[in-house]
């Protein structure tokens, strides 16, 4: 059987991660609205505290998903590994995971306010995907540079990591700033 290229492997890894993490991440706030505990959270906690709690939980969930999915993925689709490549790959996974967790926590809060019922999870994907697209593109490029450094353009890993880190900072800041205005109003 012919082996797939490193670029395909990099893209597939993030597709697998996206779909396995999203099903859990999308439920963050919807569950609170469904069992009616969202109003208690609104009364008892400041928006920042509520969002921080949800974000920490989602970061843990994301880390768990990556710890299970990534090793399994590279068992099924092996790539030549070394200590340096492993370190680079872990950096990409950590930074990409943070961006995915914080962007989808905010989108989950928006979705929980919709009157969608069962359609909410479909709506979650529609709304979360374009917001996540820039970080996913950067993550795929950086993953490619991490697992196949010889084929990647110069500085691709460094550029990808810098872009992922700046996306994480900007998106997390914006989410904290905007969450209060959306959450307390509902």
């Amino acid at each position, binding site marked *: 059987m012919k082996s797939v290229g490193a670029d395909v492997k990099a893209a597939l890894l993030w597709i697998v991660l996206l779909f396995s993490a999203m099903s859990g991440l999308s439920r963050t706030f919807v569950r609170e609205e469904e069992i009616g505990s969202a109003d208690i959270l609104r009364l008892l906690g400041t928006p920042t505290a509520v969002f921080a709690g949800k974000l920490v939980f989602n970061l843990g969930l994301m880390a768990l998903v990556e710890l299970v999915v990534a090793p399994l993925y590279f068992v099924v689709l092996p790539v030549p590994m070394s200590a340096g490549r492993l370190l680079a790959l872990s950096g990409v996974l950590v930074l990409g995971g943070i961006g995915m967790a914080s*962007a989808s926590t*905010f*989108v989950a809060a*928006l979705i929980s*306010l*919709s*009157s*969608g019922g069962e*359609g909410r999870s479909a*709506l979650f994907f*529609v*709304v979360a*995907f*374009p*917001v996540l*697209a*820039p*970080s996913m*593109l*950067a993550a795929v490029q950086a993953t490619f540079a991490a697992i196949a450094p010889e084929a990647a*353009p*110069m*500085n*691709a890993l460094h*550029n990808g990591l810098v*872009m992922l880190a*700046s*996306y994480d900072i*900007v*998106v997390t800041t*914006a*989410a904290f700033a*905007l*969450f209060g*205005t*959306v959450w307390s*109003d*509902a």
Partner: protein
Amino acid sequence: MKTFLKALLGVWMVLVIIGAFTFVPPARGFQVPALARIMIFHVPQAMTATLASLLSGVFALRYLMRRKIIEDMRANAAAMIALLFWVLTTVTGAVFAKVEWGAYWNWDPKQECIFVLLLIYFAYFALRSAIGDVHKRAAVCAGYTLFAAVSVPFLTYVLPNAPGIQTNHPSGVVFSMDGMDSKYKLVFWSATIGFAALAWWIYRLSVQIDVLTSAAMARLRRTGAAG
């Protein structure tokens, strides 16, 4: 006065179209210089779309600060105009890409960006249609607009300009001193003014429709509750 301005806009756009096809000389430096005339439509449309996107973000911010529902209607109308003009930009760009690069869609970095940008607008309207309560909808849509606004610059500026990424899309032609000759400049900026005025007119109309619709709905609810 209003009728006069509308008539003037009609004549203006007709002149721009005639001028684009007959008055301007073929542009140098393109595969088929005569067909580069589409730039007179493509670039002003992109500029109008950018302005409408910025306006939509400003109104979203104003809604979150003032909580007046009219700001949400304005943001919505501006987003509609932005989507309309981004679609026009994409279509004219694709037509010229066929001439210049050989295919309607090449997944050039610029095309990847516009693709995700269109998805963001589709998601915005999907989100809007999923929320019934007016104030909740306004708050969620404003939150989403501003959240998308901070992730878009990564898409439009950081990613295409990263080292190692090559785009075939020309840039900086419009604002450089020797980019266009005087005939081109005249028709180009006339087209920009024309498209911006057209967008402004559509925007005003759609805000008015929104205001009237919500007033009519409120009256219907009142009389329905009384009867």
